[in-house]
């Protein structure tokens, strides 16, 4: 009896994983509520990725609204979304980058190769600002209004579908575009 159970184990494990595969085929990236929605962007002082000698705080972000995009070169999903960020930037959407626990040299190389959609990039080598923001992984994107308040948090890649379905409206209502 015990042997039978052991023999069944691989099949059961596969079926369990298979169910996830099935639902993954049809699912949308879900949203994740942030405790910070409706609150201001936490205070910070971090170096500028492209000019490491210069430190920036949220004053440097200037007027909103803007997207605060958490990314890293070790994150394949970020690479997938990068092209769409370039498209958005070309349309005049203001995007600020938070380079999360990354090697600065690789990050700069990435921007040089794939294009730089960001107005400004904060280098969060230790991940301190990301912790304050409650960042779970990369990529994540926050919509921040002109008063520096977080309006919305999107977990996962930003693509045309997500942008049109959700983010664009929030961004426009905040006075963007």
């Amino acid at each position, binding site marked *: 009896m015990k042997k039978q159970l052991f023999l069944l184990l*691989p099949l059961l494990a596969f079926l369990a994983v298979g169910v996830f*595969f099935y639902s993954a085929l049809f699912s949308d990236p879900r949203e994740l509520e942030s405790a910070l929605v409706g609150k201001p962007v936490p205070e910070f002082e971090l170096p500028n990725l492209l000019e490491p000698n210069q430190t920036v705080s949220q004053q440097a972000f200037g007027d909103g609204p803007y997207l605060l995009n958490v990314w890293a070169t070790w994150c394949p999903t970020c690479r997938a979304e990068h092209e769409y960020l370039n498209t958005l930037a070309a349309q005049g959407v203001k995007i600020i980058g938070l380079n999360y626990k990354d090697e600065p040299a690789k990050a700069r190389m990435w921007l040089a*190769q794939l294009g730089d959609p960001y107005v400004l990039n904060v280098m969060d080598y230790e991940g301190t600002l990301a912790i304050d923001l409650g960042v*779970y992984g990369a990529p994540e994107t926050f919509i921040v209004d002109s008063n520096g308040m977080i309006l919305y948090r999107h977990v996962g890649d930003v693509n045309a579908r997500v942008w049109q379905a959700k983010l664009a409206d929030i961004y426009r209502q905040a006075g963007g575009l």
Partner: protein
Amino acid sequence: MIAEWGHIAQILALICACLLAVIPMVGSYRGYINWMQLARPLAQLQFLFVAIAFAALCYAFIQDDFTISYVAQNSNSKLPWYYKLSAVWGAHEGSLLLWILMLSGWQAAVSVFSRALPLVAIARVLAVMGLISIGFLTFIQFTSNPFETLLPFYPVDGRDLNPLLQDVGLIMHPPMLYMGYVGFAVAFAFAIAALLSGQLDAAWARWSRPWTLAAWISLTVGIALGSWWAYYELGWGGWWFWDPVENASFMPWLAGTALIHSLAVCEKRGVFKLWTVLLALSAFSLSLLGTFLVRSGVLVSVHAFASDPSRGLFILAFLFLVIGGSLGLFAWKGAAIKSRGQYEVVSRETLLLGNNLLLVTATLVVLVGTIWPLIHKEIGWGTISVGPPFFNLLFSILVVPFVFLLGLGPLARWRRQSMAKWRQRILFALGLSISSGIVLNAVFGDVQEFHAALGVVLGIWVVICTLQELLSHQHGNQTLWQALSKLSRSHWGMVLGHLGFAMSVVGIALTSTYTTERDVRMQPGDTQPLAGYVVKFEQVGPMQGPNYRGTAGEFSVWDGDKQIAQLHAEKRQYLASGSMMTEAAIDAGFFRDLFIALGEPLGGDAWAVRLHYKPFVRWIWLGALVMSFGGGLAIFDRRYRVARRRQSSPAQAVQTTEGEAG
């Protein structure tokens, strides 16, 4: 016109596969000899048709036949001919056809090199492979047909091959990789046939071994090529990224490595039968799973193929059928299988089992790390990426006990090893490897770099254990040379496999620790120090390629007053797609690579330049080549040919090979 012929051949191949899956299988149960005898010709015919289809697609690429949608999307008239050819497998549809070509090729090979097999066995093995072929041929025919035409409106020129793929490394990488992936289908089919007949014996293990080794070799070389390509082409100097696509090839490799070892135990000692059969099913199942992950779009990856839910659904249904079916068969038939051999706790069997478990753990680590983002998303916790820190940490932990057991395994006897005789050797090897590893790292590197020291210790441990094992074959008044020349090829295969692995471990540890990377601003005439050398930026200027234009930078590298290298780095912009590519300049050496890449222009003639010094990076790939060479020796071991010539029964064959190590 040629394209239509290719399409027809593809359909004929599908028909052959259907016949192959049904007729010999039914024949094997009914006892119709002439039905079973159809297996071989049908397998060969299927290969012929797939080869015609593949050749037709190649011809369409060479001839710039942009009436075919797949050609128009992935090729361009300005592309050099060799890239036109590699563009055949540059995207989803064509690479799927390549996959099918490989599968049919393996099938045909099994049908040719299986004279010693009983007819029932060969009929079932080929029928199972035919069943797998049906899945892939239906998939390509109905969801991903490379022969779809754009008539009557077709473009004047094509969209060009993804520039990342316009590279020599990419011509060979996918074929090798697929050959390995698909090669595990043979071991899978043998396992299914054995489960169906209930005869899981030494003969089954012996038949499976050379095929499994062949697949494993291809996969090893394929993965090494991919890593090497990523290193010089992506421009970051990294050689492994734990990307889902890389993981998809790494999982079958880990399971396959476990399989070739457990097959050896199974053949020689008749134990671990269930375990071995499960590994044989898993290795190919993981290949299929990788295909699903890469081609269905459920995971986002740097080199994922264009995603399409209908394709994903098809592969998933196929996965359920093949993996679910085979694991179900395992659960159903497995209970009847008994392992007959006896062994004690301290024995080679236990050590091999230990390493098998570690390899399977490593496979599960990669699997969990790869699909965790997907499960995470489905539970509703949002999208995340599991980064390299997770994998690196777990692998650096797992490798220590793994290498420890790897050294001990060959030193131990089958069945039972006396501790007293063993202890001295182990202590000697341990003492020597730890002390020399630490000293070497302190002298040539940095005392404080624990990981580098560990890597060197592990490498020396394997070398010493292997040498001890070789020396132990010298008995009486034999010279060492006489003793060594008596060892079988598969024994040397094991020796090289282990030494190659040690080489890769040392390479990985030293490269990861001692790499120097500098990003500097340079103008022509500037010099920069790099790990004891001086790099001089000679000149920079525009350049023109066949389908791109760009900037070329010339660098010279000096060691004191002596120039040791002249390097040429490029930054290219491809005309059809506009994308930018970095061609790094590399001065390769056995002990170190110097790597120079142009970053971005900084105004005037100044450029951001990346300078890397990468010690021992070649060892990673050389180690993989040494491992594969070892695998090759094992395939050509005499006993496989002896067994074939004698047409021997399984029982006799076991006797002829008993007592050999390996």
